[in-house]
């Protein structure tokens, strides 16, 4: 949506400006003459204060500073510029080009280029031009990236919307049939339609995940944080997924110790995380396996409640345990290569939990199974 445009976009590309700070009037006059035909505004200041006044009042692309000036050295000035206006390119032009000054300027990351006086104006002009071109290219690239993100958001939002309509009709008619509203069903018909319904629900969840992934990328995913118990949430998720697990003859159980402290989280999002973890486990656990949901308060971290999902699945190789949480990633060489998915589920889990100020990770042994851990904050957390 249009809201994405509220994010920081590069400033308007007009007009380019180069600011020179030097306490010697003849240096400024010389530069003014030499650069007068260049396609940017040349602004001059003879003291750091005046230079900052200019910087505060308009966008400046490049600052060129002398080193030895009354009041403030060029290195100090340029370091401040870097802190206040990191996008501004910084050059030094000095007659006191000692090795110490140059080293300090470079090591403090105060300048990108260093010129000595007297300087060849043509070379300086050329360097300014190249730096401006590079900056322009970076700006264009960033703009393109932003536009692509917005386009992708709109596309995903549109796709998600369009998929929901046929999905709704399928859901309506399958449930009409299942509820016997079009006549009594044989047990086989009942069974087959239950499979259709289960897949409709899965498809619906995928449509939601797809949209949420797009939202996390554009920073539009909102959390509705509240204090609540995870018990009903776990039970509800389990009862939703029991049929899917049963279809593979997988035992799906929850063992939650009592009492458990309340968590401070978005219950809908937390349920989405648990659902994704369980679907993932069901997908990678061979028939007749088992999946257990647990919870505990870790002794070494009193600020979180740890939710666990343990399966007897194919396991994850050590080198993949981090990568599986990346976007569009799936562990390679799983036992059953037919088990594909969008590759968004675990990424979404990580994004959702990180936004809560929590953490998600996995312990796994190939061939033995995996345990996913979700650390959910127990107290209010200042979000980044």
């Amino acid at each position, binding site marked *: *949506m249009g809201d994405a445009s509220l994010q920081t976009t590069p400033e308007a590309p007009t007009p380019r400006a180069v600011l020179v700070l030097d306490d010697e009037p003849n240096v400024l006059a010389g530069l003014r003459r030499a650069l007068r035909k260049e396609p940017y505004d040349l602004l001059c200041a003879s003291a750091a204060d005046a230079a900052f006044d200019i910087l505060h009042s308009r966008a400046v692309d490049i600052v060129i500073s002398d080193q030895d000036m009354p009041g403030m050295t060029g290195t100090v000035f340029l370091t401040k510029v870097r802190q206040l206006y990191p996008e501004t390119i910084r050059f030094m032009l000095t007659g006191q080009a000692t090795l110490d000054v140059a080293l300090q300027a470079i090591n403090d990351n105060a300048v990108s280029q260093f010129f000595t006086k007297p300087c060849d104006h043509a070379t300086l002009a050329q360097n300014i031009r190249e730096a401006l071109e590079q900056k322009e290219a970076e700006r264009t690239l960033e703009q393109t990236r932003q536009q692509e993100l917005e386009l992708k958001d709109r596309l995903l*939002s549109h796709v*998600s*919307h*369009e998929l*929901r*309509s046929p*999905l*709704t*009709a399928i*859901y*309506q*008619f399958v*449930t*009409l049939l299942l*509820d016997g*509203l079009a006549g009594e069903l044989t047990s086989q018909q009942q069974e087959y339609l239950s499979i259709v319904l289960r897949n*409709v629900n899965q498809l*619906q969840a995928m449509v939601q995940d797809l*949209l949420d992934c797009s*939202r996390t990328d554009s920073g*539009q995913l*909102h959390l509705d944080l509240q204090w609540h118990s995870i018990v009903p949430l776990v039970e509800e998720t389990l009862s939703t997924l029991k049929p899917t697990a049963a279809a593979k003859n997988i035992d799906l159980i929850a063992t939650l110790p009592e009492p458990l402290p309340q968590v401070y989280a978005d219950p809908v999002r937390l349920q989405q995380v648990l659902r994704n973890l369980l679907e993932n486990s069901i997908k990678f656990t061979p028939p007749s396996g088992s999946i257990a949901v647990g919870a505990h308060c870790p002794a070494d971290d009193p600020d979180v409640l740890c939710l666990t999902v343990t399966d007897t699945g194919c396991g994850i190789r050590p080198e993949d345990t981090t990568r599986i949480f990346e976007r569009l990633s799936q562990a390679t060489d799983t036992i059953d290569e037919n088990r594909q998915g969008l590759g968004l589920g675990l990424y979404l889990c990580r994004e959702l939990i990180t936004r809560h100020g929590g953490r998600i990770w996995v312990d796994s042994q190939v061939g033995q199974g995996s345990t996913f851990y979700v650390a959910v904050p127990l107290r209010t957390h200042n979000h980044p």
Partner: protein
Amino acid sequence: MPEAKILIIEDDADQLIGLKLRLQAHGYTVVHAADAVSAVRVARQERPDLILLDIGLPAGDGFVVMQRLHNLVDVAHVPIIIVSARDPEHHAERALDAGAYCYFQKPVDNRELLDAIEDALGITV
């Protein structure tokens, strides 16, 4: 069984039938309209007890319909439940501010929708 009359404003013929059959099975009388213009006319004629309203409609969206309905003396008090494929993140707040009883994103769970209808009608089951 409830005997209320429900107006479904929905332009997708399949979804309309699906929803209609579901509501009829629960004892409701169902009337319908498929676009923004006829929605207002049918509402005025039929005097429904409750309205299920889609947002994406031909000839003016659901928000326009809602505003027109609220301006009709005979219909202004009728509770409106929004059932739309559109993202609630962007539309639910606006719909509730405009006076909708609640907002569901499609596909909506049958039980949840029926519960909301009963709540809106003040039916205690």
